[in-house]
Every structure is written in C-alpha cells, then in structure tokens.
C-alpha cells in the first residue's frame, strides 16, 4: 500500500473514534459498547500509521499474504461480535417477557379494583 492510503485509513480510524466518543457523550451509545469499538479503532489506526506492524505479525504467525491475516482477524472479530449480540438478545427477550407478564397481572389487578368500586357505588 502507498503511504497516502495508509494516511487515509489512519484518518478514517481516528474520525470514527471521535464519532464514537461523541455518541457516548450524547449518551446515544453505552460506554460499555464504546470500549469495544474504540479498541478496534486504535488497532486500525496503529496498523495504518505503522505499516511495518502487520507485516511483522504476519511473519511471526506464518501467514505469507498479510491482507489474509487482516481479513481473518476481522472476520473472527465480527463472528464473536454477532455471537455476543445473540446472547444479549436472548437475555433481553427474557426480561421483556417477564415485564409483559407483570404488566398483564397488574392490568388485571386494576380491572378488578375498578369493577369492585363500581359495585360499591351501586
């Protein structure tokens, strides 16, 4: 890659990180999720700013074609992320269900109260 491309990617990574920080400050993104994305941003920015690093790591783990290593890591990361979201989703589903049950029971209690008071009026 040319150094211009590296510069461009580094700028993009930094911009993305700034955006994430802004979202957290606006409370549109939970801080716990920002940790994840900021880490990704830092890794990208470093890899872009210091071109030798990716080559060096690829060499160490025995991957001849450096972009393959990059894609492999990216793919693995996205898979883990998707799994994590499935897990969170299951948990949320359970909670929403409990809330729906509670709501139905409370509505019922309210119904009963209002019919009771109507009968008292008579």
């Amino acid at each position, binding site marked *: 890659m040319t150094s211009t491309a590296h510069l461009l990617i580094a700028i993009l990574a930094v911009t993305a990180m700034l955006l994430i920080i802004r979202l957290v400050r606006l409370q549109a993104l939970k801080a716990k999720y920002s940790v994840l994305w900021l880490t990704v941003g830092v890794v990208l920015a470093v890899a872009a700013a210091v071109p030798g690093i990716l080559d060096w790591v690829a060499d160490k783990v025995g991957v001849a074609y450096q972009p393959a290593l990059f894609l492999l890591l990216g793919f693995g990361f996205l898979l883990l992320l998707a799994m994590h979201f499935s897990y969170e989703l*299951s*948990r949320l589903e*359970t*909670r929403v*269900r*409990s809330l*729906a*049950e509670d*709501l*139905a*029971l409370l*509505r*019922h209690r309210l*119904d009963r109260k209002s019919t009771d008071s109507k009968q008292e009026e008579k």
Partner: protein
Amino acid sequence: MRTAVIIPAFNESEALPAVLTELARTVPDHEVIVVDDGSTDKTAEVALSARVTCLRLPFNLGIGGALRLGFRHAAESGIDQAYQFDGDGQHDPSEIPGLLRSLDQADMVIGSRFLEETHQKYRVGISRRMAMALLRRLVLKVTGQAISDTSSGFRAFRRPVLELFAAEYPVEYMDSVEALLLLHRHGFRVSEVPVKMRERQGGRPSNRNLRLVYHFVRVLIVLAVGFGNRSPTGHLK
C-alpha cells in the same frame, strides 16, 4: 379444592363466547383464566363481559408465553389444580371430569387424540403426522415414556407442576414437547387419557409450514441436548 381452567387466546373473539358459556354451564365452580395473548380483536372484551379473569398481554408472546402467564397467575392465587383448554371450541367440556380424575395418579394428565380407545379419527396432514411420530419416538427415547399425543392442548396439572411451570414453562412454539422433558427432569409423573376433539369453531390454525419446520428442528436440538442442562436464564425468583 380450587380448580382453574386456563384458556390461552389469540384473536378468538369468534369462538370464545360459546366456549365460556359452555364452561359456565358444565363446570360452574371452576375459575376461568383467559390469557389474551396480544389479540387485535375483541377477545379481551369478550372475556371481561363474561366476568371471567382476563390477563391481557401487551403483545403476542405465543402460546407458551401465554400459558406461562396463566400458570403463574394460577400458582400465585392459590389454585390447587388447573387444566388448559382451547378457546376455539376444539375441546369438549364433558371430557374435563375424566381428565381431572386421572390427576390422582399423575402430576400432569394429557388428553390424547391418538390413544386407541378414541373412536373418532383426528385429521392431520401427512407431513405433520410424520413429524409427530418422530417427536413421539424421541420423547420415548429421552424420557422412557410413551406419550401418544405430545402436542395436545388439553392437559391437567397438579399444583406442584403449576408452580414449576409458572417459572419455567417453555415459551417457544412446540412448548408441550419441551414441557414433557422438563417434567421428566423434575421427576413428575405424566399420564394420558383418551379424549375426543371437535372441529375448531372459529379462527384459523396458527402455523405455516416453514415456521413449523424451523420449530421442529429447534425442538430436535432441545431433545438432543436433552435433560441435565440447567434452567433457562433469568427466570423470576
């Protein structure tokens, strides 16, 4: 002895009035609990105007979710035994006493459409029949008990089962198969009595084929994972 009848209902305003009238006539001392599973029609109004308990869910949870709420309400209000009854008129109230009588020998009694003594044949399509046969075989393998009707919606429960189901009733479709495994895991006894069922009086059958396949595979996975796994995450208490 307080007995409750739990009726999960999703858009059943057509058939529900007749069902409630019939129940009030044949089993007047049973407490009726209608669970309105996020219906978009007048199901809740029908139940309320019949002066029975109506639990209104804010959105559709599916049959398992609706049942779990019914069990929870029954358990919390001190019911001794309960049975599940369809809101579409498929079930015959004259079968109720027989179902409840068998609770002396079991913790859950299933009203089966497929036991030999039943004269009238209940009509089901070929693919569904094959799926049911396979489920029966697997249930037999996992629990060691032959259950002829694993998907019947006409079942009676003793209080200990109500308490278990209040917290842990399986909430996905094909809940009844999973429920059998759950009972087996907790050492509860299950038995069956033959019942006749009628044609539904209104409403439409609730499943499309693709969805059925998906849920079938899901239940196969549940069966394969088998018992011995812990309770679902995050249930109350």
